[in-house]
């Protein structure tokens, strides 16, 4: 179970809260039960154990270890389902055809459900039976989080809530430093922009870039300190309550300033969290449009409001799994790159079947998963090298963090660029 | 049998169509003939144990044809013995007093047993011959 050759300083399993073993499994069952229902049932009743999902998973691809078979990661959740919820649940319980979920089993599955799963959904795309395995992984994480068995880093980030707390000061310092006007907490605005906490910590230029673009478009936009963090550690950790709190902040902030559009930053899971899950958490359709920033840029391009210089370079685009494969934002970034006059050299595979960078789903933040993630990174490097493109671009900060970490570790000659920064640096000033 | 004929619809007797069994039979005959010539071991085939249609019988008759010998034996009904075009292969058909076939054989041998005069009959014959000679 140890991930490759790194020494493990802390115990393999992270645990939160002092509770007896029975309590942990009870909490896990409580969360699992909340995710039972027709969709989970249809999926869990369809698996024919063909093992093909392993062929799609980058963790299996680089290790060849059968335990990384995606559907195997669902085993605890599937056990709970068969015993509690399936049409033959009575017989499964009576004859104990499926054992009860045990705490030992949950602990063992922490490595499978978090360290070795970026919830990238490539397995769901492969499954001949049409099972959305990635979707069920998120459900399974609910049980783990409720049982206090989420990885340390994700649990802390989820509990922290919006970060950094001094968002407003940081933004004003940034604005001053880069001489650009970044409105915060305007009472009324057409567009509410949001950031990823990774952008604030590591890639502040993206925020500046966003501000420049908005200024160039003359948009009536603002950030809101009561709702600015778009990336959602509640979702990554599997804590449904934290996830809802984070999303509700954004929704309420948007309503408060009467925004007609909410723009999500360059982040994969942030898009899914709000665009596709926001309304269901809110309980009714969202009163505003939700766009990934690459979608917004493509729209602005199409409407002619935004003119860009021609880069004249060959480019390859890394599709972030959550926004591209699972979110459907595939064409927008490519339209922007075209508008930048670049020659797009697609990787193979790309778009919906692209390999994951290995850092999504919170994996990049889990220190003990580094060794495993680095193994996966080779796939990405080869893929990009093969295109021979001069520039590598993506539209997700978690991906950028993974690429930068990989580049540092393997002294890779390429570095990953942000689409938004690229656009901002090539604006044609009116 | 006659009653069947005057039914309106004339059913084409499928039994008239040859079924290809004769070819298999001829192969077996050549095997038996070969065995008889090399080991002297006679053999015979009971035609009535095979699903042969009238068409098959006609085809068999045509292919085997007639050889030099054809004899009839009168013993509780008529028995016809005919050598076929292939010497050593005989067609022996036994009928009872009512003329119905009771056995229909192909025999591979120098001469079918039925043609030989049994010793017991000869003994009875001798007694009768001697009586006829007594004045």
């Amino acid at each position: 179970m140890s991930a490759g050759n790194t020494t493990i300083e802390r115990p393999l399993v992270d645990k939160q809260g002092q509770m007896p073993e029975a309590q942990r499994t009870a909490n896990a069952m409580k969360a699992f039960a909340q995710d039972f229902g027709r969709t989970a049932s249809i999926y869990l009743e369809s698996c024919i154990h063909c093992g093909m999902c392993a062929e799609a998973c980058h963790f299996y691809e680089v290790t060849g270890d059968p335990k990384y078979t995606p559907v195997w990661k669902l085993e605890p959740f599937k056990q709970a389902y068969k015993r509690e919820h399936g049409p033959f649940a009575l017989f499964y319980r009576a004859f104990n055809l499926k054992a009860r979920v045990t705490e030992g089993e949950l602990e063992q599955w922490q490595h499978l459900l978090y360290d070795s799963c970026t919830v990238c959904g490539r397995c769901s795309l492969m499954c001949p039976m049409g099972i959305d395995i990635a979707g069920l992984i998120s459900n399974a994480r609910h049980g783990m989080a409720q049982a206090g068995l989420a990885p340390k880093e994700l649990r802390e980030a989820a509990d922290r809530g919006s970060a950094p707390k001094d968002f407003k000061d940081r933004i004003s310092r940034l604005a001053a430093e880069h001489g650009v006007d970044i409105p915060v907490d305007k009472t009324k605005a057409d567009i509410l922009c949001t950031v990823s906490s990774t952008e604030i910590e590591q890639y502040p230029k993206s925020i500046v870039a966003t501000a420049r673009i908005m200024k160039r478009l003359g948009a009536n936009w603002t950030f809101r300190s009561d709702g600015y963090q778009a990336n959602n550690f509640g979702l990554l950790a599997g804590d449904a309550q934290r996830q809802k709190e984070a999303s509700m902040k954004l929704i309420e902030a948007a309503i408060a300033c009467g925004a007609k559009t909410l723009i999500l930053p360059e982040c994969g899971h942030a898009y899914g969290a709000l665009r596709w899950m926001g309304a269901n958490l809110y309980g009714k359709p969202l009163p505003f449009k939700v766009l990934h920033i690459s979608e917004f840029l493509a729209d602005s391009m199409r409407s002619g409001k935004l003119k860009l210089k021609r880069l004249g370079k060959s480019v390859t685009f890394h599709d972030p799994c959550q926004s591209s494969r699972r979110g459907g934002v595939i064409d927008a970034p490519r339209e922007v790159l075209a508008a930048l006059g670049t020659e797009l050299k697609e990787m193979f595979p790309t778009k919906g079947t692209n390999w994951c960078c290995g850092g999504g789903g919170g994996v990049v933040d889990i220190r003990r998963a580094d060794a495993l993630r680095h193994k996966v990174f080779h796939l990405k490097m080869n893929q990009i090298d093969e295109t021979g493109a001069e520039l590598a671009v993506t539209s997700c900060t978690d991906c950028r963090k993974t690429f930068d970490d990989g580049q540092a570790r393997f002294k890779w000659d390429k570095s990953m660029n942000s689409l938004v920064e690229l656009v901002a640096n090539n604006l044609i000033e009116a | 049998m006659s009653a069947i004929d005057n039914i309106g619809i004339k059913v084409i007797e499928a039994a008239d169509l040859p079924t290809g069994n004769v070819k298999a039979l001829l192969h077996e005959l050549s095997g038996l003939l070969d065995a008889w010539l090399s080991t002297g071991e006679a053999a015979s085939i009971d035609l009535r144990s095979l699903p042969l249609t009238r068409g098959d019988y006609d085809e068999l008759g045509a292919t085997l044809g007639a050889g030099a010998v054809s004899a009839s034996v009168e013993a509780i009904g008529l028995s016809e013995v005919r050598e076929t075009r292939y010497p050593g292969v005989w067609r022996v058909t036994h009928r009872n007093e009512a003329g119905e076939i009771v056995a229909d054989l192909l025999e591979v041998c120098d001469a079918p047993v039925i043609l030989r005069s049994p010793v017991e009959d000869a003994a009875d014959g001798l007694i009768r011959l001697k009586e006829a000679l007594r004045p």
Partner: protein
Amino acid sequence: MTTLGDTLSASGVSRRAFLKFCTALTSLMALPPSMAPAVAQALAKAKRPSVIWLSFQECTGCVESLTRTNSPTLENLILDLVSLDYIETLQAASGFAAEEARQHAMKESNGQYLLLVDGSIPVADGGIYGTLAGESFVDMLQESAKGAAAVVAIGSCASFGGLPKANPNPTGARSVSDIVKDKPVINVPGCPPIAVVMTGVLAHYLTFGKIPELDAQRRPLAFYGETIHDRCYRRPFYDQGKFAKTFDDEGARSGWCLYELGCKGPITHNACATVKWNAGTSFPIQSGHGCLGCSEPDFWDNGSFYKALATADWGGAKAIGTAAAVGVAVGAAAAYAARKRQNRVSKEG
């Protein structure tokens, strides 16, 4: 006891005639022709067994088929060989004289005689539905079987219960082997059996003095070893998939396979396809009708004669309808229980 050989030579039958007779008998018994000398040798020494024929709940079809009154043939010759001491249908004597003859024959060659039975034996209500001179068929059979060397059940009724045993079997008809447990029983099923088959079995017992090789249903393998389908001359059409759809369509006229019209040939063991009926004239399939499977147990209750063998009895619309209703009900109950349990577990865990 005079031997058969003495009887024949006494009646002026030449040795050559006797040889011819044995050849015919060998063919009759479906033995390989090379066995003819062995048959002749055994037959010459055989003693004329006494035969008692008891007819119970039957339609006389078997006796009719055996004797075939329209043309005396080899079969009659066989009957001349055996001293048929009691056959109620054919014998001139009747009443007390007949019974006396039977008792005498049974006493006289006790343990030696061959008991032939045709017709099933009703056992319901103490066997009241079948009695002769006050004695029930059941008792008669048990009593006659005591002294028999072997019992031959002639026809499907005696062998398996036949028509009288067909659903609902009001008379409680039973087969011979259901009642006679301590004596060897040879079943010669068929409705009726082929005359040649009956005499063949008799001849075999007569010639070799013992029971021919039998299959699981106690039927002589010589005649019941293979199914009609195995020996059917229309088999090539079955393999090519050429099937008659109705009794007078183009397929039927050109002699195609009758599988679709309900032929039970594939599951019926009998010698009709080779020995054929009425001295080799024809057999049901050759005359254009599917085999009914009359030599198989309970063939009366085995589904329609005109429904293809493949159409098993899946239970009909009503049964499947109820099954569907039950399935939906149980499914709904399972879903309801699952929802309730989901509510409980998602609160307390």
